[in-house]
């Protein structure tokens, strides 16, 4: 093929489309190759997306983006097999808001934005390999076909086929990734509003700890879409293996928990999907994010922030794509696509919220590996509160109940240490 592109982007997710959007706006000749038959075909996401980067980059964002609902209530629920304790924050989040979206629809919209800006997005093409000449990446191969470009932006997602070929990253280890399963359950828009006490367009983001993962590392989630509910479980792979958990079983149990069942009894599942999530934070990011003629952006680079109460990835992916595009533009102007020239990308990332946020919650990933937060605390809290609220002949105060429940399961010292560590690091 004769046509040579300024940049080839592998993967039409938030990172790849962010890079393509910016590059197309710079007037560069860019093509995004996507393995799925449609943009978004491979996306699985709960999911809540933070607005800030999108709003800054795409002026018409608020008017056009396919938002299901704006988050109005944040909930954390600790669960045992019968009971649930929920903490809810009801607030005006408008200064720093987030919305619930179906990521595949959202990315489809981003894809349209890229095309409107003059970029090409081609689904149904699986990139198999890189073309390297003297160690420099010159393009990609897809089946028998070759496509050349000055630079390749690898935004392939969690499965690092291309990044491995470029020698930029290894396969994920079981303690670095979680597996997520998600169901979309159809109920009506009014039912969603009634059950969760929401006005039109308002939504709930609910995280769950304890029973949903069968007390393994991870959590459950529930997001209100317009007229459906996204319900899912995310479990770290090593923990799922250690506890011999089948993720497809566990979501059934979660859906049938009395707390969830009463919400969803009217509905039935219309969609089922599963995906991997990078969870390692800063430590999961490869040492080099650029090579000669190639940059990594999004999930493949591990840009996901898990701070326990929230998991963020889509906004960070999009921002990393924008920064990759800025770098490519500078390299284009300098006519130099060597690793040295592209390394300003790493600087840009370090000066951006991608790294500052991951840095701030650096110790969260260690803390979130503490099984007590998933196993012991949800169960004890449910039991203690249940007893405290139970009226009987010999009602007791909370403290003696707590001591009784902790017996043999948790020392006071460990609990205090965990609480301090959680407050400090999350």
């Amino acid at each position, binding site marked *: *093929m004769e*046509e040579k592109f300024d940049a080839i982007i592998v993967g039409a997710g938030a990172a790849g489309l962010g890079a393509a959007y910016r590059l197309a706006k710079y007037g560069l000749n860019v*093509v995004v*190759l996507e393995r799925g038959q*449609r943009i978004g075909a491979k996306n699985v996401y709960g999911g809540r997306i933070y607005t800030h980067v999108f709003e800054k980059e795409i002026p018409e964002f608020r008017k056009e983006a*396919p938002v299901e609902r704006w988050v109005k209530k944040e909930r954390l629920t600790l669960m045992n097999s019968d009971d649930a304790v929920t903490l809810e924050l009801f607030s005006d989040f408008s200064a720093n808001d987030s919305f619930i979206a179906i990521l595949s*629809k959202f990315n489809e919209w981003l894809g349209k934005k890229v095309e409107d800006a003059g970029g*090409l997005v*081609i689904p149904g*093409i699986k990139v198999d390999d890189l073309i390297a000449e003297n160690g420099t990446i010159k393009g990609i191969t*897809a*089946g028998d*076909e070759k*496509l050349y470009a000055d630079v390749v932006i690898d935004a392939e997602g969690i499965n690092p086929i291309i990044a491995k070929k470029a020698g930029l990253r290894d396969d994920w280890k079981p303690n670095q990734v979680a597996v997520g399963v998600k169901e979309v359950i*159809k109920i009506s828009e009014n039912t969603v509003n009634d059950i969760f006490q929401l006005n039109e367009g308002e939504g709930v983001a609910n995280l769950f700890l304890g029973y949903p993962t069968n007390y393994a590392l991870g959590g459950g989630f529930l997001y209100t879409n317009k007229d459906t509910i996204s319900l899912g479980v995310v479990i770290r792979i090593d923990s799922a293996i250690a506890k011999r958990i089948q993720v497809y079983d566990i979501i059934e149990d979660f859906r049938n928990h009395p707390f969830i069942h009463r919400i969803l009894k*009217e*509905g*039935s599942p*219309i*969609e089922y999907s599963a995906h991997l999530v990078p969870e390692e934070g800063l430590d999961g990011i490869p040492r080099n994010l650029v090579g000669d003629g190639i940059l990594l952006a999004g999930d493949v680079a591990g840009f996901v922030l898990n701070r326990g109460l929230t998991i963020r990835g889509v906004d960070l992916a999009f921002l990393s794509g924008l920064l990759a595009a800025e770098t490519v533009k500078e390299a284009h102007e300098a006519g130099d696509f060597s690793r040295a020239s592209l390394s300003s990308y790493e600087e840009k990332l370090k000066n951006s919220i991608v790294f500052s946020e991951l840095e701030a919650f650096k110790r969260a990933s260690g803390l979130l590996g503490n099984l007590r937060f998933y196993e012991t605390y949800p169960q004890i809290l449910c039991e203690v509160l249940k007893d405290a609220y139970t009226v009987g002949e010999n009602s007791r105060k909370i403290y003696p109940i707590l001591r009784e429940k902790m017996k043999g399961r948790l020392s006071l010292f460990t609990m205090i240490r965990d609480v301090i560590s959680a407050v400090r690091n999350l």
Partner: protein
Amino acid sequence: MDIIVCIKQSYDVQQLKFDPKTGEPMLAGAPRKMSDMDRRALEEALKIKENLGGTVKTVTVGPPESRDVVKEIYAMGADEAFVVTDLKLDKADPDLTAKIIVETIKKIGNFDLILAGAASTDDYSWQIPAKVAALLDLPFFPNAVSMTVDGGLVVESDLGDAIYKYKAPLPSVVSVSLEINEPRIPTLSAILKASRKQFTDFYLQDLGLEVVTELEVRKVVMPKVERKNVVVEATDPSKMEDGIKKILDELRKENVI
């Protein structure tokens, strides 16, 4: 030979979800794709062009999302695409659709052959190609399982009771079945070449038409399949015989055996 192919951007029925309560398809934002039989009509036209030369032009009628099909039409190798869109056309009945197709064909001008899928992937009415032929006063050969054009048009039509072999005049309208060919998958280079190609966008006023549908669709629902949910407990191996007997009784009751 100059060929015109009618191509619908259908709902991708396999991706379609149904509201479990009402049984109605959830059409808002549902993915679409080129109708399966129309894709084969285009493939057949491209094969003829590759053999004999000429042009392949396409006509697409539908709601604005239908424009998305053009990329694929060009990637497969068509020369020129014509699209007529209107928000209201999602509810067009076969009469109106055929009328619009015919008016568009008149704008395109000369042709030797018109091809179309025998039925669309979503509505599956089987009416459009025949109506187009009638409006143009051309001979119509339905449901072709094979066709050849060198030395005159010969069409083999599957009419249910048998396959009929016709010597057909030109121009004619031929509708094709799923088994006529295996359509090509466009290569990356073909997709790239096609990606910036322009197409002609018509609106109904360009054709002097407006949306008048005489057919009213009352309801589209999924057929209800009620499961019997009969569970035969047979956990005790010594009582397996009883379990088997119960299963057989159930099957007999349903007249399955």
